[in-house]
């Protein structure tokens, strides 16, 4: 069982290094996807809604790595991701109660909400901790951020779905 956590930690580290060094050369107008955030969301989405082990473990590892490779104080992203974990899990529970089946629409909508929430809350924190780095600009670049991240998220979604990763229960995943 501990092997699962080791693999997840290793994957988070590889994704963090990739997005800081490899994907930099594939930026679209200076924008690259945040693989760490994407992978963490996939873990939350595909883990059982009443389980929090992977979510909390992932929040610590992902948050730690996000802060290490950035200018932020250590721990900001950890707290943020723990908070977002509870929000995402709650929404998924509500969606699960309403329908026995998940759809790609839920995934896309929840992912966009998750991305926006992370960015907004992070900038609110920056406003108090490091004001010059707070950025509330809303422009066309956000569309590219969303689209580029969503592209990789959808690839991850189909990978998790096809190989039944984290499938502890029988989930009916349909396109629409």
């Amino acid at each position: 069982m501990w092997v699962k956590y080791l693999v997840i930690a290793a994957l988070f580290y590889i994704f963090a290094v990739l997005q800081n060094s490899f994907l930099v050369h594939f930026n679209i107008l200076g924008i690259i996807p945040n693989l760490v955030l994407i992978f963490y969301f996939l873990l939350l989405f595909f883990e059982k809604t009443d389980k929090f082990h992977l979510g909390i473990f992932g929040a610590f590892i992902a948050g730690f790595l996000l802060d290490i490779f950035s200018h932020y104080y250590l721990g900001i992203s950890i707290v943020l991701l723990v908070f977002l974990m509870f929000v995402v899990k709650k929404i998924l529970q509500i969606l699960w109660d309403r329908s026995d089946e998940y759809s790609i629409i839920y995934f896309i909508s929840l992912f966009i909400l998750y991305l926006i929430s992370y960015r907004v809350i992070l900038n609110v924190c920056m406003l108090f901790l490091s004001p010059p780095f707070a950025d509330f600009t809303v422009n066309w670049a956000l569309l590219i951020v969303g689209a580029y991240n969503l592209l990789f998220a959808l690839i991850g979604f189909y990978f998790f779905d096809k190989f039944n990763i984290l499938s502890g229960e029988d989930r009916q995943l349909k396109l629409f």
Partner: protein
Amino acid sequence: MNTLTGVSINKKDNIFLKIIGGLVFLFIFIAVLNVFQNPIKNFLHIVSSPVEKYFWDAGDNASVFFASFINARNIAKENENLKLENQGLLVEITSLQSLEKENEALKTITAIGRDQEFKYVMAGVTGLNTAEDIISINKGSADGILAGMPVISEKKVVFGRVLKVFKNFSEVMLISNKSNVLNVKIPGSDEAEVPVYGVTRGNGNLGIYLDLIPIDSNINAGDVLVTSSLEGTFPKDLLIGKVQETDKNDLKPFQTIKIEPFFNMKEAENLFVITDYKTR
């Protein structure tokens, strides 16, 4: 006492205690992390540096490979433009060669060497945080780097200044960072023309723009921006970028001009930190 209610209350107390315990643990964990922030970040960057370098080079090669397919149509056009530009530059070189001979003679008499003004530390780029326009370089306080030092390329193109220094690596804020402001000048086309002074501001996403240019200033597309050294951070006459397009609005007292920066992450393999900048 109702046994069921008692059990329910105990369960709620347990959850509440677990939440409080979790929050306390989180608070202590984060406090400890930040107390040892510098050594933790330094250690992880030492460990990650070879891996990041490998992926940086791999990404550079892969992007060149894919770009050749995407830009095939534009390459021929770009080639023609470069040939024309090259011819113009050759003419300019000829006229400058005669000036250079005079300058050499002056140098011999006055024994002034421009390169002796600065000391450089060469550093390799190990990573880029595109969300903040901050790069990591593999030199730190152990190599004599201090916060605020300018960082340039071998072709004297300004990249930014050192923001934070750790023992073995440093964070460099690019000039495209949104909080960055840099005094610049646009030299006149001839010696008689007065240079135009302004500031470049970071626009995020590796972009910059020129601001505080008087509305009546004559700025043209293709004009080159250089540092003015007015704020004392960068030596003067280092390359910043060139004017892309102007946006004159008579209702505003100043022009805002889009700039194409010269700094290019694809050519940022080796950078130079000026450790001993002296103003002239």
